[in-house]
């Protein structure tokens, strides 16, 4: 039986490679545990490094479509990459199972029956954090994000659930080394809380600067995608007390999650991140779909099987909405010491249940 080809495109080099690596490792974990098969059929995973460059991703997309003729791709790590190649794939009849980025346009008017996003819609973490801030009754909040599209989206998301006007919105250049100018202003403004979004290495610098300025513990730091599985190993105790929102945490109950966490830690000697979790789910989802179609990659059958989402998500509560983005629960976590004395994330509260993104209503799909 010729194996089913699955394209995996992720950022595997450059500063953001940690995300892509976690996604790839988790995906391969499932494949290897099943003896090189998904859904009972052998699969060949063709991994490609998008280098976080849209033009390179484009080139890879050409290759996967024309040369490798894959029926299905997954990964895609960042929104700009998914935006650059999503349409290309779906137009060519390739099914996309995005496992991290969830850009708004593809959730709304530009949604496609061939495109699934297993992770979340980008705004939703911010919405969960906004909800938390509202619940806590914070009145004066300053936001800090890098000055690019995702940074602005995360503010929009936050405001969707937090209606009080922000005290100030600070945008910092993307390649900034140092945050003391902004932190000095925060010190002088004395807000109730700070809301921040700094993914990857930026998060490490930012949390350190926040901690070294003596603010951590004094002014609550609410974050999204800043302290996660990829940055915590670098931050360790420095990040104790940081709050973050996500739809997955390593301490979530459920056998599926416990198996995932222990298998991942066993194989790769590190704690999985949410990126790993989503990619793991993507592998499980594809596994369930291929099992349903008995290995057939006929597009109609495959998309129907994917949409059914007949698998045990590590997140427990999971189903696809009309736009093929998930409907799930969102939580707030805190960085704290776990049983082994390592800094890890611990669930604080569930903020949103069965929550669907705000763009689904613009999607014509049923």
């Amino acid at each position, binding site marked *: 039986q010729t194996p089913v080809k699955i394209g995996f495109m992720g950022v595997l*080099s450059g500063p953001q490679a*940690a995300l892509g690596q976690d996604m790839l490792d988790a995906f391969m974990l499932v494949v290897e545990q099943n003896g090189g098969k998904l859904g009972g059929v052998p699969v060949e995973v063709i991994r490609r490094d998008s280098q976080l460059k849209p033009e390179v991703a484009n080139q890879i997309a050409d290759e996967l479509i024309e040369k490798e003729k894959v029926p299905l791709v997954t990964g895609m790590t960042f929104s700009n990459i998914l935006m650059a190649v999503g349409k290309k794939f779906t137009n060519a009849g390739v099914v996309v199972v995005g496992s991290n980025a969830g850009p708004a346009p593809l959730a709304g008017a530009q949604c496609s029956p061939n495109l699934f996003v297993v992770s979340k819609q980008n705004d939703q973490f911010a919405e969960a954090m906004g909800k938390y801030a509202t619940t806590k009754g914070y009145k004066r909040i300053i936001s800090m994000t890098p000055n690019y599209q995702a940074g602005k989206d995360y503010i929009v998301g936050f405001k969707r659930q937090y209606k009080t006007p922000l005290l100030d919105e600070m945008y910092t*250049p993307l*390649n900034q080394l140092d945050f003391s100018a902004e932190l*000095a202003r925060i010190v002088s403004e004395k807000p109730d809380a700070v809301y921040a979004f700094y993914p*990857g290495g930026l998060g*490490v610098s930012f949390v350190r600067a926040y901690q070294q300025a*003596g603010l951590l513990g004094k002014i609550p730091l609410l974050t999204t995608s800043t302290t996660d599985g990829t*940055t915590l190993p670098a931050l*360790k105790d420095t990040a104790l007390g940081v709050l973050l929102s996500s739809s997955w945490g390593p301490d979530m109950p459920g056998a599926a999650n416990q198996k995932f966490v222990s298998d991942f830690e066993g194989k790769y000697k590190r704690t999985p991140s949410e990126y790993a979790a989503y990619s793991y789910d993507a592998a499980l989802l594809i596994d369930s779909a291929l099992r349903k179609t008995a290995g057939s990659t006929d597009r109609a059958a495959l998309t129907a099987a994917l949409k059914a989402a007949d698998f045990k998500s590590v997140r427990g509560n999971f189903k696809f909405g009309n736009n093929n983005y998930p409907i799930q629960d969102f939580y707030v976590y805190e960085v704290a010491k776990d049983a082994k004395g390592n800094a890890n994330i611990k669930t604080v509260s569930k903020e949103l249940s069965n929550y669907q993104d705000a763009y689904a209503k613009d999607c014509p799909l049923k």
Partner: protein
Amino acid sequence: MVWSLFFSQVLNGVQLGMLLFLLSAGLTLVFGIMNFINLSHGSFYMLGAYFAAATLARSGSFLLAGLVGVGGVMGVAFVLERLALRRLYAKGHLNQVLATLGLLMFFNEAVRMVWGSQPVFTSQPAWLSGSVPLLGMSYPSYRLMIIVAGVLLALGIYLLIHKTRVGMLVRASSTHPDTVAALGINARLLNTLLFAVGAGLAALAGWLVGPIVSVQSGMGDDVLILALVVIVIGGIGSIRGAFYAALLVGLVDTMGRAYMPQIMRQFLERSVADAAGPALASMLIYLFMAAILAVRPGGLFPVHR
């Protein structure tokens, strides 16, 4: 109140300036004085940070980490120069760009192969993690230490280059290596050592800056550009220039980020100001550099060749 904020922003600017100086000091030596374009400077910075982080994780000693970081990188640089890079001195800038770009790629990947893609853990030593009271505010001692280190380093290099025989010889062999050799000096060894020292300074920066940024593969790439901006504004080959330029860039950048958004909101609608402010802040140091070079093509302290 307003003034104390202003003052702390000035201090922040100085601190960023010293950070930049630490990053560019080694580059000025190698590039400005040896006239060798070393794009792998950022890699030495990264390697320094990694070596230090790895040592810290094993031994827990911040000072030992610095020793291993700087020493290790100097060793790497020494071997590299001996085996390969010295052949490039006579080959012109473009070949140097090509070669060191290749090295940069290699080191970024090698580091990833050894330590993985995730940022690695480092921390400041306990004895520097507090704050010190300073003119009515409290300022993190580690960052104060960076300011002090920058100033000391500037002084040290300045004296080395301008007040010692070694410095004279280094400057002389940047233009006439053969003549220096014919006058009895082992110019090759001198270059090797200087290259290693330049790399060591980069590693020093990596060790000191590691605990406040994220130690990860590729961390040196953007830093390299910043360092280049600094030494070009200062005037290539001028330690004094690099020092003042680093301070200026640090202050301009910090002040721009601290006050530009508010100032722009005075004139513009908030949404426009919020969009334009940070974009302008990102461009600020480049605008600054372009403006300086347009007026003074040789930088602030041009060195005549």
